[in-house]
């Protein structure tokens, strides 16, 4: 008689590893600058080859892992002076890059509230009345007759960053010396003490909770002598380093904004020409700034920035964007336009004060996540690209001298370059430029002007609070418009219906209903489908995780639900928000909008981990 035994559990596949020389995390403008610089050197046959230490006998092994499904997905549009980009591409012809156009006209418009629902201070209400009384407004807007030079993008270029990244990825790959791998999220850095030894890629073939399932493939460990961290301000690796290493001095990441935009086809008879740039402020809320950039072939980008210092807990970017595009100053151009694309992205607005440790043993940080954005001139792409070029030059110097990527060597080769550059000098000037906004929009604008006109020597100094502490209460925000008892009734009704609060509150506060036209004014879900073409590949874990459900239940604000750019976070059962990975565009607004801080830390009750998928449009 033979005894049958049940088959034992199948051993999970072991975690594989790979050795390379340089691993980059994220492909954005900064990495484009880095890889452009490095790949040209590697392809230069007139100079000695740079051999690989990871794979002896081969050339230097350089890989870049990008979370999104293609280079250029999930980024943003921009107008930039493009100083660093032009320096790297001296023969740059905007006509060769889809959606790029030289800046031809630049205006700053103050938008008067045409619907009477905006929350305006006494100062702004007086300004509105004065402008109307003196017939200073055209289409409910007032063009500023003068703006400081530091705000101008003269001789700049309007870009779709998606198209620019695709173009730059093509230039880099054409050298044949480095590899860019989209659709490959990096879960974390491999940290030993204070050193980084490479990265671990995200597990595949897991369920929503990360448990192994069919086709389980543990994320590979990629060992690298140098890890270049350029995963942006909400990237998992950059934030992991911040938590592990802390921030230098009093640096902190306190100020944020989410930018949301539409890319539209303008009507055939549009009077707008390519290169037209409009900056706006004053509407839909005074705290919300906006823009319209015109690309070639009657394509335009139009969008808004919703900042962390906007104290409304119902800070819905999408509803505000719909009201913004209907403002008469814009609607005259957009009325017969048609949606091409849509997207959203978080912006780190702390600038130089959000700078982390730039280097350490085995790692260097570049780009927006390294605090390179100039918050006075609202310029980040060119600065990010410049930091990538600076690191590229430094790395080449170290490789040629056969010196290791230690902290002192990277300090000398990269950080010194950066400190001596215009990025640093202008970043210092802008460092405190935004401080006044904590006390109101007008004060903020005065603070910016003061900072810009004095070269950063004067500012309305005020250390910004943690973004979680900047969120006010619904009752306070709508005080004078909606009685507290009615807010409570609306809240109870929305909870019962399982919907966010913002639409009901805005309707009640006097915001008119959105006249959906199926062209530009579409539902938020249609914006995802028609505009963002949002996708989520199967087999990955949820990347938005609510740490303590009890804290979520106790949170009366649920800003994560209200601001979610894609309605991926919705009211869930028993008071805990529910996350739908298939809708997420990875903008990260939920991370800095969570009002529940974990006791004694800078962290909040929401984790924003590495994840796959998101936007599938390269036009943003």
């Amino acid at each position, binding site marked *: 008689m033979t005894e049958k035994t049940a088959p034992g559990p199948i051993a999970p596949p072991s975690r*594989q590893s*790979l050795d*390379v020389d340089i691993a980059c995390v994220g492909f954005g403008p900064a990495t484009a600058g880095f890889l452009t610089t490095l790949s040209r050197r590697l392809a230069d046959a007139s100079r000695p080859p740079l051999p690989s230490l990871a794979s002896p006998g081969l050339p230097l*092994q350089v*890989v870049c*892992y990008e979370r999104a*499904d*293609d*280079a*250029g*997905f999930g980024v943003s549009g921009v107008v930039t002076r493009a100083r660093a980009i032009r320096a790297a591409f001296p023969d740059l012809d905007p006509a060769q890059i*889809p*959606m790029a156009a030289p800046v031809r006209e630049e205006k700053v418009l103050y938008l008067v509230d045409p619907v009477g629902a905006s929350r305006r201070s006494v100062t702004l209400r007086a300004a509105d009345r004065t402008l109307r009384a003196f017939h200073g407004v055209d289409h409910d807007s007032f063009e500023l007759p003068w703006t400081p030079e530091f705000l101008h993008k003269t001789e700049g270029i309007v870009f*779709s960053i998606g*198209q620019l990244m*695709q173009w730059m*990825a*093509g230039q880099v*790959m*054409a050298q*044949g010396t480095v*590899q*860019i*791998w*989209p*659709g*490959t999220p990096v879960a974390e850095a491999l940290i030993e003490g204070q050193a980084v030894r490479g990265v671990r*890629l995200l597990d*595949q*073939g897991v369920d929503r909770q990360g448990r192994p399932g069919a*086709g389980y*493939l543990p994320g*590979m460990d*990629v060992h690298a002598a140098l890890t270049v961290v350029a995963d942006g301000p909400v990237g998992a690796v950059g934030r992991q380093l911040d938590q592990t290493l802390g921030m230098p001095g009093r640096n902190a990441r306190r100020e944020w904004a989410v930018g949301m935009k539409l890319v539209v086809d303008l009507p055939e008879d549009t009077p707008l020409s390519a290169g037209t740039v409009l900056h706006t402020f004053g509407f839909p809320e005074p705290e919300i700034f906006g823009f319209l950039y015109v690309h070639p*072939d009657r*394509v335009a980008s139009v969008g808004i920035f919703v900042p962390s210092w906007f104290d409304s807990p119902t800070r819905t970017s999408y509803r505000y964007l719909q009201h913004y595009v209907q403002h008469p100053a814009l609607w005259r151009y957009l009325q017969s336009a048609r949606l*091409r694309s849509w997207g959203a992205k978080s912006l780190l607005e702390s600038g130089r004060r959000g700078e982390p440790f730039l280097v350490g043993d085995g790692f260097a940080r570049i780009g927006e996540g390294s605090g390179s954005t100039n918050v006075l001139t609202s310029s980040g792409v060119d600065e990010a690209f410049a930091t990538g070029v600076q690191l590229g030059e430094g790395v080449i110097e170290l490789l040629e001298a056969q010196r290791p990527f230690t902290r002192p060597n990277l300090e000398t080769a990269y950080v010194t370059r950066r400190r001596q550059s215009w990025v640093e000098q202008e970043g210092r000037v802008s460092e405190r430029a935004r401080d006044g906004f904590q006390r109101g929009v007008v004060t903020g604008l005065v603070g910016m002007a003061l900072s810009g006109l004095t070269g950063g020597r004067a500012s309305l100094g005020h250390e910004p609070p943690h973004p979680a502490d900047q969120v006010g209460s619904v009752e306070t925000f709508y005080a004078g418009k909606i009685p507290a008892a009615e807010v409570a009734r609306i809240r109870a009704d929305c909870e019962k219906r*399982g919907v966010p609060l913002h639409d009901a509150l805005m309707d009640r506060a006097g915001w008119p209903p959105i006249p959906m036209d199926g062209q530009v004014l579409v*539902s938020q*879900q*249609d914006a995802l*489908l*028609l505009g963002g*073409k949002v*996708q989520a590949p199967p*087999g990955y874990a949820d990347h938005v995780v609510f740490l303590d459900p009890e804290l979520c239940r106790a949170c009366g604000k649920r800003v994560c639900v209200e601001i979610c750019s894609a*309605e991926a976070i919705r009211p869930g059962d028993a008071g805990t928000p529910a996350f739908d990975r298939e809708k997420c565009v990875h903008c990260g607004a939920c991370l800095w909008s969570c009002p529940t801080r974990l006791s004694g830390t800078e962290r909040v009750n929401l984790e924003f981990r590495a994840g796959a998928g998101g936007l*599938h*449009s*390269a*036009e943003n």
Partner: protein
Amino acid sequence: MPAYQILVLGSIVPDPLQTLEPLTTPQGPGLKNEAMLPHVLDPWAAHALYEAASLVAKGAASKVTLVALGPKAKLQQVMMAVGQKVPFELLALDGPASGFTDAHEVSARLSEAVARLPGLDRSALLLFGGWESASRGAGVTLQMVGEQLGIYDQFFGVDELTVEPDGALRILERVEGGKHQVSRCAGPPAVLGWATGNLPEPRNNPQVGMANMRALLPALQKASPTPAGIGGVRFESVVVPRVTRETRIVKDQSVDEIARELVEWIRKD
């Protein structure tokens, strides 16, 4: 088990998620802002590639070569994603990928390239491709390539290929009614136009990517200019599928109710 040599003919198409708008360009019919659209490997050809790689993994084939005619820059972009999926070599031809190009011209360029391929062994050759195409192609290119190469054992709508112990090929082709026609082919050379096959999209594997890219990048750099025109064809009109979306979020709706709504929606047309 014999070691076949598998060539997969496949090119790129605009990401099917994008909004496509046909128009007439100076070069003939095209799509608005086509250069801006992200591209993917034609999903039908991708199935063929994954099935081919599966045969290599099982030891039934020695190697897979993807033969792709398309704009070099876009091919390069697509290879960044596809290159992580399965091991393969690339023969890149720098030319148009638009489905408006004449299928006869495209097939001629492809068959010429295949015939010139060093080490081509017709006795071991399996020519794979998509049964159809997500591009605006007529879906006949693969068949013509086979004919131009003198390969007359052709199977289309293939969902499964099994190599039998004697080296014969057992092939399941889709027929009406959700059924399959089972064919037995003595061996290569043969043309197999794949439907969806049975394999899921492979996971991204960085080791595969690293190994692939050492050959893919040089192959892209060597891509020869390969013009293919519209063969004198005049397009009277071009229509893309109408995109209609009505989005609602409805929870806990019964299957019957969903089915009823779908039927009503279909009947609108």
